């Protein structure tokens, strides 16, 4: 965890070193983020036609994920990872809301969108990305975030299993 500089993948006597793992993680995070960004960019125009704010959301999401990928390669440190976790969780949160409670605002407010393979795949990628990034932050931060995710997960399942109209 100590060496945070960009380190090429290294294998020592058939075993990966910590820094090699770190580099692999950073590379994987960057690739996943890039893929997510690309998917968001691909849907900017169609959503923009629906409402400019929908398009703007996709544009910002795509920009964020694209820039994050670059940042991850350039500055693969815990602060970058924290930013990535926050941003991707925000995107995942908006996704869950739009597919359960409904779109929060705009001309389609309240309408629950259908999930498709593309968006489920993208969200799964973002969750894996968050998992990777969690391994790159400090112990305290990690515990805090994971416990927060636990609370949100339990709350979502509780609302669903009690047939609460929120989900």
């Amino acid at each position: 965890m100590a060496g945070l500089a960009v380190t090429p993948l290294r294998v020592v006597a058939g075993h990966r070193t910590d820094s090699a793992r770190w580099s692999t993680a950073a590379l994987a995070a960057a690739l996943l983020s890039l893929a997510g960004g690309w998917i968001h960019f691909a849907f900017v125009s169609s959503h923009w036609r629906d409402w400019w704010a929908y398009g703007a959301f996709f544009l910002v999401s795509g920009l964020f994920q694209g820039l994050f990928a670059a940042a991850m390669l350039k500055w693969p440190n815990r602060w970058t990872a924290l930013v990535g976790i926050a941003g991707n969780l925000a995107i995942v949160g908006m996704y869950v809301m739009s597919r359960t409670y409904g779109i929060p605002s705009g001309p389609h407010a309240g309408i629950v969108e259908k999930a498709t393979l593309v968006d489920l795949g993208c969200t799964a990628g973002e969750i894996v990305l968050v998992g990777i990034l969690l391994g790159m932050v400090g112990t305290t931060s990690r515990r805090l975030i994971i416990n927060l995710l636990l609370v949100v997960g339990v709350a979502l399942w509780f609302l669903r299993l009690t047939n609460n109209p929120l989900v």
Partner: protein
Amino acid sequence: MELSRRDLIKVGLFSSAALMLPAERVARTKLAVANRLPQSKLPEPFTMPWKTPPAAPKTTVNGVDYFTITQQQTKVNILPDRQTTIWGYNGVTPGPTIYVDQHRPAVVRQICALPERHPELGYNVWTSTHLHGSCSLPQYDGYASDTTTPGSFKDYRYPNIQDARTLWYHDHGVHITAENAYMGLAAQYILHDPVEQSLPIPHGQYDVPFILKDVMFQDSGDLVIDDNDENGIYGDVVLVNGVPWPKMEVEPRKYRFRMLNACVSRSFDLSLDTGEPLTVIGTDGGLMPHPQPCAHVKIGMAERYEVVIDFSKYQPGQRVVMRNTSPKNNIDYDTTDIVCAFVVGSHVTDPRNNEIPQDLNPNMRVMDLKASDASVTRNMRFERKGGGWTVNGQTWEDVVNSDYELTVANPAYGDVEIWELENPGGGWFHPVHIHLVDFKVLDRNGRPPEPYEQGPKDVVYVGESEKVRVIMRFENQRGKYMMHCHNLVHEDHDMMVQFEVGDGGDDPIHADPCKGQDKMGPLFEIPREDNSGHGSHPGGSSTISVPAAAAPAPRVQVLGSKVKKTKPKKRKVKVTRKPKAKVTHKKPKAKVTHKKPKAKKPARRKVVSSSRGRS
């Protein structure tokens, strides 16, 4: 750097919620389709008895008819051995038939007592009730974005100034009309007038509502709701008045059937297995000028035909089957080629009104219109564009984004216009409904209209690669009205636009929005001098509403957005104007001033529940 097993479980709990809850709705639909009730478990055709929808209780006070209708979720036995969750007006589907007389206005209180979320699909529920065939004011026309949410109500006022006709009321809530209507929110509304009543055509028990609908059941008995990737909802069970392939005992005489296709997406081509004709005497807008004997009648969604069948031609005990030669581009099943059966009896209880006169309604103004009367011809192109359903490249979303200003046409009050309704696609048909007006079908791809279309219409079947010309006069009301495809899935996604008649019409959304049930006062007050009960029908007192103390506050929603009632906040949306309908000025009349065509703007489209988009 690695996550512990405990950490993974915690993250996994969140991940499962984030992925499984969004996928649940799609999975449910897939499971429901997979769980479709097999044909072997469906009732045998022509074994279930005929039913007629109940009449809605009416109270008449000071020359106004009052009705109270509650939109409810209930479980009913459509199938003999299973219960089905439906949404019904007063808890039945089809809902109660409203009977009214010409020149007597009606007020229908629609109370939305549905759940806040759809039980299966989970969407937020709202409704808007359209009286289809009525020249209602804009705020009572069931404008799609003038929604009523659960816990709210709205008093709809209907003028009933038109000629006798078969109307129907059904849901029109923006983006969820298909699902709401499929769940059961549809019913007939029958308007009588002295001319129609004086004709010796079948009346009373021989004047029969005939509401067609197709559904598909899950093994549990609940409905399968699958819109086939926004193409349409199709069922394998044909219901007539809510009964699967019913059998009707008839007397050997003439019957008049008020046929309504209340399906979401299915069209029918109806005929009798005996080869005898169906004599069409009325269309959407009322009686035709003359009866039309037809070997078959193609009926698209929302179309109405009043059809007389003469059972005196048959032997007692003979069974006559109504068949469906399905028009193309429906999804057909082994069980959708039959509709119902009639078993002919031997005794006529009432021989009166057993004729079909050659002149039915010679005074129908719209049928006198000629192409040369029109000052303007507009082209309306219904097509699939960029994954969405559009009209001249526009969608209802464009209307919403323009703060409900965008229109495809602005005819002046009293103008006569020809609209060319064009379907360039070959893979689908569009029954096109123009609100407010009755129109006359001039031609179809240059050929004369079908014999059964030669009456006043408000929906016309625009088939594959067809161009249908209709002519109409814009009268009775001013304001904004919708035009859309009546494949309700197409309408929801988003083949609906609006036009504006004249200037200064009422705002369809804000002129009289829904109110919370805590504000629900009496629907009417019986005047003191009328306390004797004169003019009131039995059961009327039950329609006097009492404010409900614990009812939730109203939620006024416009297109799903919460909108302040007092000063609607305008979004800062830069709207570039769409090209209006192609207008050909033929004979500009001196008194008519046409608005300047608005600036052209690039074509846009809208996908509501994008199958491609995310977040």
